[in-house]
């Protein structure tokens, strides 16, 4: 791992939904092994920014470069990119028609990343890692929110991604389940995974982030270490936001 290597470079990213400008001009760099946490009020464009990184949203303008390759709209390259960029959603989005094990094995087997046996082995290993070995045969509707989210993380990890995106992974959880999910994420961060996390968990940002970005109105208004952002925010909007949430 090389902390100077830029994994993702975003330059002048713009995104409109019709007349609504969600991202106005966003530029950022994410280096290998770095944990970047994005905070900001609702509607500031955080989620849209994240979704642009694995092309779930098509950018209106600007460029995104991952590992030196500029993202294009070729379907084939898009699918290849997504294999390497894991995504965890606010509402988990586990496949309801499959049990946990099949949720984990679907993509690796279907995309011929490995044999069925290897996929199963890896799936079981990932389940063990998130502490849900005994739920392998359960269906999503039989799991609690926290368990679902841990399975979702395990599912993304089964593709051996080198970047993980988290879109408000704890926002839909009951308070007592937030901890178990954050624990898995911290573990992942310690192992050196490159992570981009949109969250309202300021405690997590403070503890785990290498860098914090504050977004509002489709722009990154301020960025810095957690210390800089939480202790000495410069931008009045950042100060205002932090006063409200802390």
């Amino acid at each position: 791992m090389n902390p100077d290597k830029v994994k993702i470079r975003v330059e002048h990213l713009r995104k409109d939904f019709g007349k609504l400008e969600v991202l106005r001009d966003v530029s950022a760099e994410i280096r290998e092994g770095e944990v970047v946490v994005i905070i900001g009020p609702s509607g500031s464009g955080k989620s849209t920014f994240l979704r642009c990184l694995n092309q779930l949203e098509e950018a209106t303008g600007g460029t995104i470069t991952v590992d030196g390759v500029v993202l294009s709209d070729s379907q084939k390259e898009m699918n290849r990119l997504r294999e390497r960029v894991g995504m965890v959603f606010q509402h988990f989005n586990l496949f309801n028609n499959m049990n946990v094990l099949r949720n984990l094995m679907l993509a690796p087997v279907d995309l011929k990343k490995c044999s069925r046996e290897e996929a199963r082995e890896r799936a079981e290993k990932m389940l063990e890692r998130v502490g849900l070995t005994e739920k392998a045969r359960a269906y999503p509707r039989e799991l609690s929110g926290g368990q679902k989210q841990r399975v979702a993380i395990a599912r993304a990890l089964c593709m051996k991604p080198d970047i993980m995106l988290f879109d408000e992974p704890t926002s839909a959880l009951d308070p007592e389940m937030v901890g178990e999910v954050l624990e898995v994420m911290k573990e992942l961060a310690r192992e050196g995974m490159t992570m981009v996390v949109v969250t309202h968990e300021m405690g997590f940002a403070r503890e785990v982030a290498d860098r914090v970005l504050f977004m509002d109105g489709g722009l990154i208004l301020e960025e810095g270490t957690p210390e800089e952002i939480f202790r000495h925010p410069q931008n009045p909007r950042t100060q205002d936001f932090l006063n409200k949430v802390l």
Partner: protein
Amino acid sequence: MLSILTKYGTLLVTAMGQTLLLALYGLLFACIIGLIVGIMSVLRNRFCRGFALVFVNLIRGVPLIVLAYFIFFGVPYFCNTILKIGGVKLTALEAGSVCLALNCGAYMAEIIRAGIQSVDVGQMEAARSLGLPYWRSMQRVVLPQAIRTMIPSIINQFIITLKDTSILSVIGFPELVNTAKNVVANTFMSFQTWGIVAIMYLIVILLLQRAAKTVERRLKYESR
């Protein structure tokens, strides 16, 4: 009543067989048409969506009996007399199957469209985020879930189509209603004959509903 059954029983049962055959052909092609048009109506491509919209509205806007006359009499006439191709002739079974397939297909397309749209978009996004291509995600994740919610409406449509076969008696297909008409003409026992016919339809449809319930129960997602 017994005299009808002993004398015309086999005839009526054979006619029911013809009804079922026609329904089977119709439904088979209706499923194919419904699936294709239904999927077309959720694609991003505007031509696909436009085609689906026109097809569904056209078929839904025309009564089945008119469609039957049009296909059975109108289309061969058009080919033979106007286009002068000559020798184009449809059997009642062929024309009937096409009618049912088009008619039921249009309604199926709507059921399938609604079914696909009822699956949370997050399911497709999650599949895509793992690198699965669109069609693969559709096939492995979205459609299986959509089909489960569609089953009751599809069975309902099957039953309607099964009963609609009776309309095709107007083009002379020897299905149950057409045959029963002949029986009445011979015996003048309309109360008994139509009573028997009604009960025959009822039995078949009850059996179909029974089968549907079993399928529905089997499709529940639970660890076993």
